[in-house]
């Protein structure tokens, strides 16, 4: 059986791409401000939690985690991972056309490879079937809700 995605499910995949890439960028910028953390000064990791860039990155990564969890409930891990890699391309293209950074030939090649990868998985089924899932705990919740 071929599992095709609904528009709302594509929206979840796009949200994963954007929140992960922007969240990682904010975290990286915040950690540059926090400075070097070594094994003897792990307390700096606590200090990092008070950096606004790290905080914004954490909020976006919580959003990413919610969307990612939702996607894994209806698609395979080996589908979701490459399908959401397009976020790397978004960041590179933002750098090129918004920040006017120069993209080297190898970066354009990297973009082309990721675009091809997304095309490969997007054209295939999103889920491997193992038989009907059993949810006894949800049946109990249903029974409780009906009272």
């Amino acid at each position, binding site marked *: 059986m071929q599992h095709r995605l609904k528009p709302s499910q594509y929206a979840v995949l796009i949200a994963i791409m954007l929140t992960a890439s922007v969240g990682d960028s904010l975290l990286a910028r915040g950690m540059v401000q926090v400075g*070097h953390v070594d094994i003897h000064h792990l307390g700096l990791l606590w200090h990092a939690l008070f950096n606004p860039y790290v905080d914004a990155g954490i909020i976006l990564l919580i959003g990413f985690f919610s969307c990612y*969890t939702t996607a894994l409930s*209806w698609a395979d891990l080996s589908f979701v*991972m490459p399908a959401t890699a397009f976020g790397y391309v978004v960041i590179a293209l933002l750098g090129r056309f918004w920040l006017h950074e120069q993209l080297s030939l190898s970066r354009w090649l*990297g973009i082309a490879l990721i675009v091809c*990868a997304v095309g*490969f998985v997007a054209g295939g089924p999103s889920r*491997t079937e193992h038989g009907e899932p059993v949810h006894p705990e949800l049946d109990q919740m249903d029974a409780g809700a009906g009272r």
Partner: protein
Amino acid sequence: MLHSADMLKVWGVIAFVAAFAVAGEVLIASGMRDLGDLDHIRARVGLFGTIRAVLSNVKFVIGALCMAFNFFAMLFALSIADLSLAGPAIASITYIGNAIAAKLVLGERVDQRRWLATAFVAVGVALLTR
């Protein structure tokens, strides 16, 4: 010599972070597969019922703890290695590790198309930072 020791430390941390990422993602994926489509669950028991169902799944909770540990390990890795090395290296190793674990642990049908996509992403991510 010191340079080699430093590189060994950096790559050790990179492998450690990637291993926790793979463990966390596989556990979460397995937990979510056990639960089923969250959209259907929300339609049946509402948002709070869905959150309760997810948070009471043991695999999800252990996977989330792995991811939380991975998060702090990633911050540590970024502090001792350049983002241009640690970021793509961890991402590439995690992509390959996830595809292998998806096939061997989760029993997913990782066909030629998905292997190719995973390899393309791993190489593409590495090229993006050059």
